[in-house]
């Protein structure tokens, strides 16, 4: 007789308290030992909600109603407490900081088995095995705070492994990590996947990292219905168009091949990884010439007069993306630095920063707001008023604008960002995307020609990230200089006209995006080349493609005409 499935979902619908409809709805699937299952779906389809139901947190700990049955190793989750189910299912959440409870790495790994009343000697054995697997055994005496983001997420995986549960559920485990951290986490997950000891259920929007370890995908549509359940590679290849239409993110290499297909270059089967894309391109005898880095699509963005100069850079930067490796310590000083100016180093200034003819470190809030608008990572941090309209009015009040003149400006800004109907709403009650739009609105209303954003896509799913990026592109086309701090290199490659690469608080390079991406400095800054660049750099047959790093450089079909 075959083993019973480890997880068995039968017509599961989950409705959060206060929500109008259930997401996910009517979902059935089973997971067996040794499987690595990726759950995909557009944002808001209930992927994360579904993971909470897999170990009984829904309905026991989260206010939500669950219809249908979830069986974990044959146990009905609605009848067994989370503590009992945790013997069978271990969870890893998105935010590494919200999972740490104790004061040392070793105590942290021991925490769950201690709660499960495992004998002390066995607890230590499990902890040692788990910590050695994730490479943290030598740091067991340290405070988890001293680990990097990737290190803390590896610790969270070790904590889950120490529970000796056969099912491991990971909800966006790399959404909050920098590229180095993502690599660390996937190195561990790859090892787990190849062991085949666990069943792994993974929710992940970063398909470029996940695609080579998963063997099955489950796809939910926007309403939360299960639409596809099939083998990973075949599904991603053969039903790529269907997935794209659903609003599911595909690997960059697959998207690139789909674009090439429209231009007449057919790669069959569709590549899923940069290596496959590279190999497939090299197998094509003749490729059309790539478009230039500053393709016609982007040329309008280059028209505004240069607005930001720094003493180290004679280059104008109409739309610059600043990349930086997340070094500990640098971050802590950064928000304050950004609040005051742009290039104030920790421990002392080295030369003045000049934005629009003034030094933001030396001028008052009013002068600064007229020249440069700041958008912090979490828009909530910037909200100071009880309503959306007041939030915008406050920015004008700092400028001393009379109320009569302020009203039309506020109305215009609300229209521009689609917030007219939410005028009197409290800013904290807006949706995530609306909050972000309002924070950009408050930064721009004083007329600043420069907009600076701190990791605006951090911890967000791709749909919300692309909504924001499209908004920034529109602003940029209208003449606003946009400065983005990020470590998402495909974003940089696709949107930035100029790049300043930083490492440990030092500027490594400033220049046009294509030049910097082609050089060695990206790796020196501890970053990873964007997937598209990784595919094209090693091409043997098509040297003219070596500089291709952004989607807009790929040849387009004459019919599309964009």
């Amino acid at each position, binding site marked *: 007789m075959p083993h019973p499935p480890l997880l068995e979902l039968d017509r599961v619908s989950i409705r959060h308290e206060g929500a109008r409809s259930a997401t996910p709805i009517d979902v059935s699937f089973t997971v067996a030992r040794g499987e690595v299952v990726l759950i995909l779906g557009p944002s808001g389809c209930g992927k994360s909600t579904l993971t909470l139901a897999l170990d009984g947190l829904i309905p026991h700990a989260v206010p939500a109603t669950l219809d249908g049955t979830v069986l974990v190793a044959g146990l009905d989750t609605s009848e067994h407490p989370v503590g009992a189910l945790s013997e069978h299912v271990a969870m890893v959440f998105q935010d590494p900081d919200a999972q740490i409870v*104790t004061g040392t790495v070793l105590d942290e790994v*021991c925490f769950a088995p201690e709660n499960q009343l495992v004998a002390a000697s066995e607890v230590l054995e499990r902890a040692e095995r788990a910590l050695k697997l994730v490479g943290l055994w030598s740091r067991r005496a340290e405070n988890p705070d001293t680990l990097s983001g990737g290190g803390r997420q590896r610790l969270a995986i070790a904590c889950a492994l120490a529970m000796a549960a056969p099912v491991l559920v990971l909800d966006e485990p790399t959404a909050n990590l920098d590229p180095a951290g993502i690599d660390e986490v996937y190195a561990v997950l790859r090892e787990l996947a190849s062991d085949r000891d666990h069943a792994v259920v993974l929710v992940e929007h970063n398909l470029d990292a996940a695609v080579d370890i998963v063997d099955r995908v489950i796809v939910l549509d926007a309403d939360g219905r299960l639409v596809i359940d099939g083998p990973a590679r075949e599904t991603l290849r053969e039903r790529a168009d269907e997935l794209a239409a659903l609003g599911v993110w595909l690997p960059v290499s697959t998207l690139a091949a789909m674009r090439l297909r429209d231009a007449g270059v057919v790669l069959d089967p569709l590549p899923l990884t940069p290596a496959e894309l590279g190999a497939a391109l090299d197998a094509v005898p003749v490729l059309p010439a790539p478009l230039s880095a500053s393709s016609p699509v982007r040329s309008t963005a280059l028209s505004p007069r240069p607005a930001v100069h720094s003493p180290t850079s004679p280059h104008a930067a109409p739309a610059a993306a600043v990349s930086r490796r997340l070094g500990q310590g640098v971050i802590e000083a950064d928000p304050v630095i950004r609040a005051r100016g742009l290039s104030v180093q920790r421990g002392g200034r080295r030369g003045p920063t000049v934005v629009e003819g003034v030094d933001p470190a030396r001028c008052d809030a009013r002068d600064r707001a007229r020249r440069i608008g700041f958008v912090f990572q979490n828009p909530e941090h910037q909200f100071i008023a009880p309503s959306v309209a007041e939030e915008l009015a406050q920015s004008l009040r700092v400028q001393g604008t009379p109320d009569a003149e302020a009203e039309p400006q506020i109305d215009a800004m609300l229209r521009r960002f689609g917030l007219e109907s939410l005028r009197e709403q409290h800013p904290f009650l807006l949706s995530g995307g609306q909050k972000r739009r309002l924070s950009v609105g408050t930064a721009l209303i004083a007329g600043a020609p420069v907009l600076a954003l701190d990791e605006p896509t951090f911890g967000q799913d791709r749909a*919300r990230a692309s909504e924001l990026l499209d908004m920034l592109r529109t602003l940029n086309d209208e003449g606003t200089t946009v400065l983005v701090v990020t470590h998402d290199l495909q974003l940089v490659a696709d949107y930035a006209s100029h790049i300043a690469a930083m490492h440990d608080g030092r500027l490594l390079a400033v220049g046009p995006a294509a030049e910097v991406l082609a050089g060695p400095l990206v790796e020196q800054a501890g970053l990873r080349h964007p997937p598209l660049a990784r595919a094209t750099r090693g091409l043997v047959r098509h040297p003219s493609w070596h500089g291709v790093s952004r989607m807009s450089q790929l040849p387009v079909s004459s019919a599309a005409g964009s």
Partner: protein
Amino acid sequence: MSAGGGVLPAGGDHAASGALDPFAAHRSRRPARFLSALNPIAKLAAPLPVMVLVMFSRGIAVPLAFVVFAAAVLLVGARLPGRAVAALLLGTPVAALVLGVTFGVWIDPSSVTGEPAASVTLVSIGDWSFSLAAYLVGLATALRILAILLLSLIAGVTSTGPEFVRSMVQNLRVPYRLGYTALAALRFVPRFGHELEIIRAAHRVRGTDAGRGPVAAVRRALGYAVPLLASAIRHAERVALAMDARAFGAHPTRTERYRSPWRARDTVFVACFLAASAVIAWLTWGR
């Protein structure tokens, strides 16, 4: 701290706020002397009645004697780093003398007019004069505070937060859910400190730093409270889910890898400490 709600940047750096780290002692343990070998409850229970006694004492003799006694216990019983020894031996008398002036200036001169030392004027500026009696009252207050501080350090410098919790759970039957939840909450402190810094920077950018004086300051503080609370609640919910998922609270007890038993030496320490304190109090009370 990030979009989608309250997450630290990937490098989330609390290391700089080491002073707030309740677990820091874990990392730099020095070879132990006798205080480290005692149960944390013994180190708290023995000085506690003495602290109450000091609180209700009058005059300089009682608190001074207990300052010396507590300092002696610390120097003998704990292996302190050189700077801590210097702070104890030099910092304590200086703090007593300086704080004595501060408290002395604050007291009502008419309350000490009956004292003989009231006629000895130390400093006078115009109508106001600072008498020796006022200084002595201030000095006594300063010494009481220092005595209580040093007595509490006997437990504080030789045991960590987790040791206290473990000992309370094992010996005083404090429910482990309470103790370990409190420990988890301690982790929030440096995190919120870091987050507050970011919020303040964000509000400065919005131009809310205009205006001086207490009214503007209160308004600013209220402005920081809303985003800080919103993110605190979200963070707490996430931590709670993560703890539930790891079987916290699933059973009435949990495995203890470290035993924290009450040994004979703990009883001896408490008895000797209280006996010595009684003798000191008897010799100095009312002097």
